[in-house]
């Protein structure tokens, strides 16, 4: 039983990281209809930047901020150049971001090399505590879980209780109408895309502590994010939360109890949802 509880906690931690990545992905898709396949690569590069900054400054939180902000800047840049140049063609954007994966991965390989690295958490966060019930559990994972919940709450507040959130949600429903109401949609797009990249970079540094950073880590995390949006529905915030928990738990139980088919176990909810609700639990049919 303590084993199962620990596995559940592990699954929830993973769900936290997956949520940070997939919420950005789904937000960008929901508002801009841009399928950013390079989202995983942004996660990885953000993590690597955080790693370098932590090595240089010996301050974890500085690294966390650096990874997140650097990726926000990259996201802003990408939105203003590539995404703007491509206009509104969904497939062209998808293909261009596919090309971007190779560029970002290759540059990351050139700068940080091919051997996996792990980010160490500082002080208290690097230790373990005994949870009620006698389970010894690393503080770092609890920290990630708490941070993910805080971010989820923050995003909820931003989306549901602020004017910006109202604009973003209106953008999800009817982008053209928002624009017609005199709101600068271009600025909203740049903001949303940067926010998505910021979340990915942030998740990269956090993920680097438990999952590690390695070549190909980007496609692993991208698959998680994609599985989440299939289950939860593309563009849905609630879907990202529910999907992350489902995928995080299933992947972790799969890895723990059926290691030979862990990846495929992940696919079971995906297929089930596709058969019953092709557009996801919280998704709506678009176009």
């Amino acid at each position, binding site marked *: 039983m303590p084993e199962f509880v620990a596995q559940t906690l592990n699954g929830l931690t993973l769900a936290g990281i997956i949520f940070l990545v997939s919420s950005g992905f789904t937000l960008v*898709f929901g508002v801009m209809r841009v399928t950013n396949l390079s989202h995983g690569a942004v996660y990885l590069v953000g993590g690597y930047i955080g790693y370098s900054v932590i090595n240089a400054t010996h301050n974890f939180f500085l690294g966390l901020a650096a990874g997140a902000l650097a990726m926000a800047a990259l996201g802003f840049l990408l939105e203003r150049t590539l995404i703007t140049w491509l206009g509104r063609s969904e*497939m062209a954007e998808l*293909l261009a971001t596919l090309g971007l994966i190779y*560029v970002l991965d290759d540059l990351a390989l050139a700068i940080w090399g091919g051997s996996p690295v792990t980010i160490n958490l500082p002080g208290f966060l690097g230790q373990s505590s005994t949870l009620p019930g006698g389970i010894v559990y690393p503080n770092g994972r609890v920290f990630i879980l708490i941070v993910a919940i805080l971010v989820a709450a923050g995003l909820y507040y931003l989306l549901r209780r602020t004017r910006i959130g109202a604009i973003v949600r209106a953008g999800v429903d009817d982008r053209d109408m928002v624009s017609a109401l005199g709101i600068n949609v271009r600025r909203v797009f740049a903001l949303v895309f940067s926010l998505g990249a910021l979340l990915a970079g942030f998740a990269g540094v956090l993920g680097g502590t438990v999952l590690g950073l390695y070549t190909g880590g980007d496609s692993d995390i991208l*698959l998680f994010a994609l599985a989440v949006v*299939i289950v939860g529905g*593309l563009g849905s915030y609630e879907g990202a939360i529910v999907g992350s928990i489902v995928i995080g738990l299933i992947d972790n139980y799969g890895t723990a109890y059926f290691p030979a088919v862990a990846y495929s176990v992940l696919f079971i909810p995906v297929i089930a949802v596709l058969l019953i609700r092709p557009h996801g639990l919280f998704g709506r049919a678009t176009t």
Partner: protein
Amino acid sequence: MTRPSGVNPRLLLRRLAVARRGAPTGSADGPPTPGRGGRPPLGAERRSGAGGSGGSPPGKQSGGSSPRTITVMRRSRQFGGPAAGLVIALLLVLLLQGNGFVSTLVVDMLVYAIVAMSLDFLGGYAGLISLGQAGFLGVGAYGVAIAEAHFYPPWAAVGIALGVTLALGLALGIVAVRVKGVSFVIITLAMGQVLWGLSYQWVGLSEGDNGITVSVLPTIGPLDLNDPLTLRMTVLVVFAVVALLLVTFTRSPFGLSLRGVRSNEARLAALGYRTGLHRYLAWVIAVFFTGVAGVLYVFVNQLISPTTMDFSANGLFVIMAVLGGLGSIWGPALGAVVIVLFQQELSIYVSRWQTLMGLTLIAVVLLSPGGFWGLLRAAGRRWDAAIARRQRDVETVP
């Protein structure tokens, strides 16, 4: 295919093309039939001619536009394609004779080209871009390797591999073609990753990271695939058969209504076409041919390991198809040639060839959505316009 009698698909398609003016990606405009290729430039020419001074056409005529020249130009347009195809076919046969590096490179190109063309059939004609195609290449290849490891004779192994690929295609298709567009890309990517995950994690079946070697190749009568030259020629023949089949499919009523499904599904559905079935069949065809390529792959390389079907490989096939030009079948084959050259040749001189490849893809998406084949097609259209201009010059002289 399930077409109500009395509707001419070619005519229907033309109407659709008019109806969907202003659609986002005009990457695939279909084969350059004389009617389509010639018409728009002719119209454009007429406009510019009317606006021009009018003095130049007769003056030009004496230069070189005799009816004879025009006939030669027409013939070049008519027979240029087939002639180039013949030359390339001969060149391929010659290149495959050697035992060296070049023939290995060409065989790689041919195998990858089969995958890229299948992907194009699905992506360029049905509008369903699959980011999981390497996974099905892996299914074909692992099918042979695992069957042979379980002591099935080589031919049986080929049968098993193709059967498994087909069965998987039929089963996964039910899920995959329920969605289209971006969702389809995401779902096929997920499928590809799961297949990769099985090859990587299911060590009992797939030997995990090490992969499986295949050393015994099939033989029938005098045709012994264990002989490298015979194997290479077989790859060439299979490539040609698949390519011609795919081209035939695209020109068949099924292919035309498939393009109709991509352009305006609601209208096709209203006309009584079973659009879901169209997409499903296109998917099954693409998956099956990719499995065929997988069988060839494992015979050529005598090894199959998870890296052949990882995310990067999935992306590479899409890059081949897009660089070459979606909706042309031959274009993606050209894309396969380019990408294999990138991988095998450019990587010797440039260590950051992947960056270069990614940037090339971005540049093509931005600047030439029709890919390399789109550029060729545009050149063909310009040639048609030149013919039409000269024709007009000749006609207006007397």
